[in-house]
C-alpha cells in the first residue's frame, strides 16, 4: 500500500506556480537556472575557505561579518525589489513563556493560494522527476550567489563571476520567497545535476561549510527528508538567522558511549533528554538541524506524516495545518491561525512535537540501524573533523514522556 498525505506545498520560488511546461533550448528567455540559461550566465560568487579555522580567531570574526553582511544585504536588496510573497518582518513572533522557550510565529499568508497536493510519505528516497517543480526553473534574480570552495585559506566575494568550471555544476544560494524568518535562503548543491532530496557526504559537507562561514550560532541550516515535510524533491538545505536560541539547542543530552574502535572519529553521540522529539535511517523520514556553526548536528527521525497518512493524528492537530518540519521540531513554530498563535503555550507546542517523535522502541530500532551503518558514519565524521576542526557526534535523544526519537551529531 502506498501512504500519502495531502498538503499545501510551500511556495519557495516565484516560478513554482508556473506550469512546468517545456522550455525551449538555448535560453528560455527567463534567465533561469536550467541548462538553457545558467551555463552562459554570470552570477555573484562567494568562495569559502577550504579549511575553516577555529571559530574563535579574530579573522573568523571579521569573516563572519563579511558573510552576514553579504547575505543580509543581498536579501534586503531582493526585498526592496519585491521578490518575496510577504514581508516576514510584519509577521508577529514571540517567545512562548515557559522553561523551554519555544518561538512561535503567526504567518497567515505563507500557505495561502495553493491547492493541497498529494505527497507520498512512505518513501524517503524517490527518483528525481523533471516534470515536477525543481530549482532549475528558478529565475536568476532569486539567486544571491554561487557558493564554491576557494581551494585556499581565504574566503572572498566577487560581484560577478562566470559559472564555475563546465565539469561541475554550481552550488547556488537562493532566496525562499516564502521566508520563515528574515534572511531565509536555500542552499542548492550542484543545481544543474538535478539531485533528488537525498543527503550525501559531499552536499552535507557543503552545508557544514556554509555554517562555518557564517560563524554565528544564530545562523542554522536545516534539512527535511521526503516524508518529513520536504515538498520539493530536488536536493536543498534551508537556512536563516534568528538571534534567539532554539529550544532543542538548550535541551539536555545524554552521551551515548561508542564502542572502542569507533572512538577515534572525534564524534560524540548523545540522546536528547527531556525534549518532545527523540532525536536516524532506513526509510525513516528525518530532519536535521546544523547548529553552532556546524559543530552540532541534531538528527530527528520522525513519523508524523506516516501517522497522518494512517489517520492517527488528531483532527485538532491537523486543523492547525502545522507541518512539523525541521524548524518546528527545533522549536521555532510557524502557526497559520491567529487563534493558535494567541493561545500558543508550552504545553500545546510540546503536544505537537510529541506527535512527531518516534516511540522509544522505534527510536531504539532506528538507532541500532544507524549504529550498524557506523562504518559509513564514522568515515564521514573523520572527514568532517579534518575539515571543520570540530568534534562531531551523533547524539540521539529520547524524550521520556513522549514516544519518539532524535539523534544529535555534535
Amino acid at each position, binding site marked *: 500500500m502506498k501512504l500519502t498525505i495531502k498538503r499545501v506545498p510551500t511556495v519557495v520560488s516565484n516560478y513554482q506556480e508556473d506550469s512546468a511546461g517545456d522550455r525551449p533550448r538555448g535560453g528560455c528567455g527567463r534567465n533561469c537556472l536550467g541548462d538553457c540559461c545558467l551555463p552562459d550566465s554570470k552570477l555573484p560568487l562567494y568562495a569559502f575557505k577550504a579549511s575553516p579555522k577555529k571559530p574563535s580567531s579574530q579573522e573568523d570574526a571579521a569573516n563572519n*561579518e*563579511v558573510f*552576514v*553582511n*553579504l*547575505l*543580509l*544585504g*543581498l*536579501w*534586503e*536588496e531582493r526585498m*526592496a525589489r519585491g521578490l518575496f510573497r510577504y*514581508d516576514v*518582518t*510584519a*509577521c*508577529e*513572533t*514571540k*517567545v512562548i513563556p515557559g522553561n523551554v522557550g519555544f*518561538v512561535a510565529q503567526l504567518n497567515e499568508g505563507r500557505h495561502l493560494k495553493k491547492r493541497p497536493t498529494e505527497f507520498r510519505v512512505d518513501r524517503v528516497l524517490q527518483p528525481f522527476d523533471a516534470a515536477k517543480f525543481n530549482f532549475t526553473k528558478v529565475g536568476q534574480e532569486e539567486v544571491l550567489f554561487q557558493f564554491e570552495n576557494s581551494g585556499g585559506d581565504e574566503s*572572498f*566575494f*566577487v*560581484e560577478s563571476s562566470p559559472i564555475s568550471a563546465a565539469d561541475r555544476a554550481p552550488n547556488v544560494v537562493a532566496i525562499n520567497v516564502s521566508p520563515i524568518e*528574515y*534572511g531565509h535562503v536555500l542552499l542548492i548543491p550542484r543545481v544543474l545535476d538535478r539531485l533528488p532530496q537525498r543527503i550525501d557526504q559531499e552536499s552535507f559537507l557543503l552545508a557544514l561549510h556554509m555554517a562555518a562561514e557564517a560563524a554565528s550560532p*544564530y545562523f542554522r541550516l536545516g534539512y527535511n527528508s521526503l516524508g518529513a515535510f520536504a515538498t520539493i524533491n530536488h536536493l536543498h538545505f534551508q537556512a536563516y*538567522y*534568528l*538571534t*534567539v536560541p532554539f529550544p532543542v539547542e538548550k535541551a539536555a543530552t545524554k552521551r551515548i558511549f561508542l564502542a572502542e574502535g569507533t572512538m577515534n572519529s572525534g564524534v560524540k553521540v548523545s540522546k536528547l533528554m527531556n525534549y518532545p522529539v527523540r532525536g536516524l535511517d532506513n526509510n525513516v523520514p528525518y530532519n536535521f538541524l546544523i547548529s553552532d556553526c556546524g559543530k552540532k548536528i541534531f538528527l530527528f527521525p520522525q513519523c508524523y506524516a506516516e501517522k497522518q497518512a494512517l489517520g492517527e493524528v488528531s483532527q485538532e492537530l491537523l486543523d492547525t495545518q502545522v507541518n512539523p518540519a525541521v524548524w518546528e521540531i527545533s522549536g521555532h513554530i510557524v502557526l497559520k491561525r491567529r487563534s493558535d498563535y494567541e493561545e500558543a503555550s508550552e504545553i500545546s507546542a510540546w503536544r505537537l512535537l510529541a506527535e512527531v517523535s518516534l516511540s522509544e522502541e522505534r527510536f531504539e530500532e532506528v538507532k541500532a540501524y544507524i549504529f550498524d551503518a557506523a562504518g559509513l558514519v564514522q568515515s564521514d565524521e573523520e572527514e568532517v573533523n579534518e575539515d571543520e576542526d570540530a568534534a562531531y557526534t551523533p547524539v540521539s535523544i529520547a524524550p521520556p514522556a513522549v514516544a519518539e526519537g532524535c539523534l544529535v551529531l555534535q
Partner: protein
Amino acid sequence: MEEETAASDEESRRRVASSLTSRYSDWVVESLDELQGSFLLTDPSIPGHPIVYASRGLAALTGYPPAEVLGRNARLFQGAGTDRAAVAGVRDAVRCQRPHQTPILNYRRDGAAHWVLLHLAPVFHAADGAVLHFLAVQVPIPPPPPPARCRVARPTVVVFAPCREEARVEEELSCPCASHAGEVFVDVDKRGLDAEEPRVASEHEKEKALSTANSIFSALNRYSKLTGLVVCGKRCDSVGIPALSSSLNLSLGRIKQSFVLTDPHLPDMPIIYASDAFLSLTGYSREEILGCNCKFLNGPGTSAEVLEEINQHICSEQACTVHLLNYRKDRSSFRDLLHISPIRNASGKVAFHVWVHLDEGAKHDFNGLTPEVWQLGAVGAVRVAVRSLSASGSLLRPSQ
C-alpha cells in the same frame, strides 16, 4: 569649603567634596570652572540632596560664593514669592528623573528677587541609566519691555531681605534646584515689590540654558575617560526616549556601518541610537545627538525636495535611498548616500527607522559588495536584531 550650614556630619562633607572627583577626575572641577554660565550640580545620593558644585557664574548672579552653597540643598535660592507650582514642577521632575525647564522667581544673597529660567537635567550613567547628578542652569530672564499698560498685580507677596530661611518653600522630597539667576540687569529693586506677573523665557534663554547644559555634559565626559564613565542627559525612558536594552545595544554595536535609529512615535522623531561609525563620520558625540532629530546634519545646499521625499517615504512606511548634501559637526559638508527604512518589532509594527549614511567621497572597502548592498547589510542586521530581541521581550530596558 563646606559651610557650617551644611550637614554637620563629617561623612556628608567628605561625600560632597568627592562627589565629582571620585566619578570623573580631579581636573573636572577646574574644567567646569572655565565654563561660562550660572549653574550647579547636586548629588541625589547624599542625604539632603546637596549642591556639590557651583559655578563662578552662579556666584556672580546670586551673590553666593561657592563655599556658601556647597553641601546645602538648592532650595536655598527660593523665597516667599517663589511660585509653589513652579517648585512642585521641579520636584516632580527630580522625582521622575527627567529634564525640566521653568521660569522661577529666585532670591539673591542680598534678598533681591529675580526671574530666571531654570533648566534642570538629570545626569545619567550611560551604561546603566542610573542618575548620578542633577545639573541646574540658571539663565536670567530680563523684564519685558516697559509696558504701556498697567500691570495687574498678583496676590501680594511681601519679601523681606532676610527672608530666605523663613520663607523657603519646604521640600518634602529632596527637591534640589531652585536657582538663582540674577544678573546685573535684573531689577535689584524687586525686593519689597509685589510679585510681578510671571515672566516667560524667550527662545534665546532656552537655547542658552540648553547650550550651557550641553557644555557641562561634554566637560563631564571629557574628564571621565580615566574612569571609563560615560554620562548623558537624554538617554532614559523617563525622558520619553526609550532606553534600548543592553542586549539590543550589544547587537547593534556589532554592526559596522554608519547608521542611526529614530523613533517615529515620539515628537520630532528623535535619534535613539547612533553607531560608532556614524559618530566618526559626523564628528558628533553620542550625547550630543541622542534625542535630536536628524535634521542637524542638514545645512546650506541640502535639498528640500529630497528631504520632502524622505518624509513621504517615512509616512508611508516605505524604504528609500537618496543622495543628499549633509554637514559634519565641523561644518564641512559631505555627499551622503542615505538609505532609510522602517524597522518592525516582533508585533510587526514599525518601531524605528534606520538611517544608513555613507560618505560618497570617502574610500571604503565593501568586501566586493556595491555600496548600496553594503548599506542594506546594515538594514538586514538591524532587522534581525530588533525582531529577535523584541520577540523575547528584551528590546527596551525594563523601566524602573
